[in-house]
């Protein structure tokens, strides 16, 4: 606490400015989507936009609190915070409140709280703590299993709620692991599996099997021409790779068609253009695309968007907030917000890279990845190129839990960063 005065100039004001700008743009558009004929007073706290003002005000309080705490608090208590996070998830199964079929919330009277938002902070701190240990080597399998376990526990607990969307966010940590030395083949395998799975779902397993076989034959004949010895020596390995690819293809096909709940399957099918259904399952996406499309280059003008004003896009103030931006502010506004997020995330990475303590760097990387994955999934869904996955757009979507969680996530890092000159 005694450090605060000396540190206030060391806060990264650029990132704070970007944060404030995003929150402000978020609120403007929440106002546009939730105002009505009877409610247009800005400080009307019975409305959603009015409530968001309260959430923003409370965020400021939270920020001050976070910045007042000493950095050592975050480092030393990170394990405890992580455990508390896991406990809060477990507790849901006992005390949670069921909303929309998922037990994701605690309700205290009027106030409700979503622990999965808090767990992101806890996991980021936990991961930073573990990897931040001296001489923690990511190339050792034991260590790899440790970090995987760290993110898998909360992810599985969240999947059980069930809220697969929020669980997906934990994949973000692979960016961190890679940065900290996770062998490349994890990333390659992951990337190839994802691409392969999508291709299998889109084109069917028969075609994909044929393509894989042809590719193998082509590759082998290329190797054979180049170096006969190579093929003779490693033929067994090549055969195993081919078999794995085949088994992967078949099992993906099987799991996709038999293991996945129909609604998830529908969402994936819709975004891969395998099925078209604009009245039922694809309705949200279509309405969102219509709203965005109607914006044109310059937008319909603030508070003048016909789709936003007519409330055609469901959940427009929460998950689909970006469609309001793109309708009323047009291509210019939409691109501006996208670029803001890019700058925001790149700025965090840049700061993280400049950290002297490994803990701060890993933490910074974690939050950059979390923001990135939130942004990618949310905006991707709103513009219709990612399956419908209901997760909020950081700082802009309506809601207290998510705003505070993202704010805390960011400002803990700002606090850590401000202290970097004191650490050796």
């Amino acid at each position, binding site marked *: 606490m005694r450090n605060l005065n000396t540190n206030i100039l060391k806060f990264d004001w650029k990132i704070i400015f970007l944060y404030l700008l995003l929150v402000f743009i978020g609120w403007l558009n929440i106002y546009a989507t939730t105002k009505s004929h009877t409610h247009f007073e800005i400080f009307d706290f019975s409305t959603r936009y009015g409530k968001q003002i309260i959430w923003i005000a409370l965020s400021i309080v939270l920020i001050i609190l976070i910045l007042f705490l000493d950095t050592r608090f975050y480092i030393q208590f990170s394990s405890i915070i992580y455990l508390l996070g896991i406990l809060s998830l477990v507790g849901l199964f006992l005390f949670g409140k069921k909303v929309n079929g998922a037990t994701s919330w605690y309700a205290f009277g009027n106030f409700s709280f979503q622990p999965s938002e808090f767990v992101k902070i806890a996991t980021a701190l936990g991961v930073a703590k573990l990897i931040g240990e001296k001489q923690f080597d990511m190339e050792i399998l034991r260590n790899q299993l440790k970090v995987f376990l760290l993110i898998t526990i909360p992810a599985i607990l969240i999947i059980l709620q069930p809220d697969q969307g929020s669980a997906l966010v934990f994949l973000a940590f692979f960016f961190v692991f890679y940065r900290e030395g996770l062998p490349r083949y994890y990333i390659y395998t992951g990337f190839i599996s994802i691409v392969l799975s999508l291709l299998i779902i889109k084109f069917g397993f028969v075609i994909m099997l044929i393509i894989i076989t042809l590719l193998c034959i082509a590759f082998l004949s290329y190797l054979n021409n180049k170096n006969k010895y190579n093929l003779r020596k490693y033929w067994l390995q090549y055969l195993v790779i081919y078999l794995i690819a085949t088994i992967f293809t078949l099992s993906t096909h099987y799991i996709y068609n038999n293991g996945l709940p129909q609604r998830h399957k529908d969402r994936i099918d819709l975004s891969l253009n395998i099925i078209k259904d604009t009245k039922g399952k694809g309705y949200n996406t279509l309405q969102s*695309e219509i709203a965005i*499309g109607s914006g044109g*280059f310059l937008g319909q003008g603030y508070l003048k968007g016909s789709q936003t004003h*007519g409330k*055609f896009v469901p959940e427009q103030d929460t998950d689909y907030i970006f469609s309001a931006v793109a309708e009323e502010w047009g291509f210019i506004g939409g*691109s501006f917000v996208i670029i803001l997020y*890019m700058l925001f995330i790149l700025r965090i*990475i840049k700061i993280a890279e400049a950290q002297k303590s490994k803990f701060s760097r890993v933490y910074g990387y974690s939050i950059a990845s979390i923001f990135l994955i939130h942004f990618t999934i949310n905006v*991707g869904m709103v513009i219709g190129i990612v399956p419908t996955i209901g997760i909020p757009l950081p700082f802009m979507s309506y809601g207290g839990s998510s705003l505070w969680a993202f704010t805390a996530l960011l400002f803990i890092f700002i606090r850590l960063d401000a202290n970097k000159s004191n650490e050796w």
Partner: protein
Amino acid sequence: MKRRSLLIYFFVISIGFIYITRLFYLQIISDKYKKQAIENSIKKKYSYPNRGYVFDRNGILLVANEISYDVMLTPRYLKKIDTLEFCKLINITKRNFDKRLQRAKRYSMRTPSVFLKQLSKNDYAILQEKMHNFKGFYIQKRAIRNYPINTAANVLGYISEVSEQLLKKEKYYQQGELIGFSGIEKQYEKVLRGVKGVKRYQKDNFNRIIGSYKNGSQDTLAQIGKDLTLTLDIILQQYGEKLMNNKRGGIVAIEPSTGEILALITAPSYDPNNMVGRKRSKFSTKYINDKINKPMFDRGLKAQYAPGSPFKIVNALVGLQENVITTDSKFICRHGYRYGKRQGAFMKCHCGISGKVNFNIAIYNSCNSYFSNVYRKTIEKYKSPNKGMDVWSDHVKSFGLGNYLGTDLPVGNKGLIPDGDYYNKFYSTFRWRASTTISNAIGQGQVETTPIQLANVTAAVANRGFYFTPHIVKKIKDIKLDSKFTTPIKTSIDVKHFEPVIEGMFDVFEKGTARSSKVKGIEICGKTGTVENFVRINNEKVALADHSIFIAFAPKDNPKIAIAVFIENAGFGSTYAAPIASLMIEKYLHREIKRKNIEERMFNASLQEEYDKQIINTKQIEKP
């Protein structure tokens, strides 16, 4: 910077690039979404202008508007009502009520739809007082057509709801709107309807209106429909319709000096008021299905008949123009004309003269032999029958025959005037010549015309060589009449040839076939016709009673009216068509009929027996 951080940099930048590209596609390249956005969020409300009125040439109102009332229903607001009382008020059964309710619910719970169309004035008056008992229902006013005089249904046409196919073609119309379906309502649709006004409203996802769209900057005002003045003389039209009682056929009367259609009568016809409001669908089905009387078939414009003897007038003019005869030419008639060596190659003649026939007698007594000679000489004047036929055909077509006349009525027929090519195809393996086609000389054979074409020929003769394209609209407020109706069209016959022909036509009334139809004080020129006609039943040619035909114009100098009368299966031209034509002329020129006995006979004459006989005959023949 560590190399490993490149992955996330790369990822961030690619995502940014991909998403901005996608935005570019959605917002700038594709216009699909913009269209859907308008469909989503804009509700257009139309204000309908009054449709233009229609008057006859003397300013008598023919078509007006009347307010009708539609019962509208918004199912969501429907509260418990006394269904039985409601049904009684609007004259429907409980079952019908349920069906309509289901339909409205299927359409939309929140958007009003038409529950019952076009309530009568009386029903409305009673319902209006009790409307507050029936929450969810309301009454919407709407203008429908009203015809003060029951006449000229074929000319006036009717309006009805725009069809699915037309909706796709004509972007102006919305489902449920009215459009001119036939007659002048169709032809002058754009003039009569005006332009509807549009108000745009912003609506929300429940289809509720939440304000005006862009503060009404794109709204337009309705423009009222324009009134039409027709060329019809409605007194003459009604008189003609009365004369055609219980007969089938058409009468067309034209003012030669302008081409204005004074009367366009088809019989049987129908009451135009039957094609209005809720009655329409019932009656239109009935009329369309009546394949025997065909009340919706405008015989004046569409029926193609062989013209018969009146066509001799044209042949006489062609003969004179081609110099194959002069007014002094005489031909021998011995009760007929032998046109070939074969037995049966003989055309009978009833001109009653055995010996030399001159030009004048040939016309007023309608000598078949004389005109066979004229026709033959015309065709044989040229090196080949083909060429001769073409020359003849061109002359005949210059009277507006063999093609659409180009009137401002939406229906018509070409008729048929054969030329050389026609017979080359017809007789592809046979060498044809003038004698093969000799029936054309007397308006039988292949020649076919519609009544309006024949009336137009008469007008051209009355004008001594030119005509104006017949038309039905005399005046539109603020719009100039199409110049094609005010430009004379010349026939290929020189003016000097008309006088002797007209003299012959005049003598038709003085001493010829229409002596008995002579009108005191009016110099009428005319020509009778009796047309053989056949139907094909099981590939057998069966002769029906002859059609009775007459063309005439009057007065002889400075003609005011040219007329063609066509009566199906009425026998000799002189028995029905001639007296009816003379009565029409008398009515038009004198407004008063002195020959009450003839008038009475024509009013009462019915050919129903003859028509019934045809049905019986047909039936007998169809059964082997």
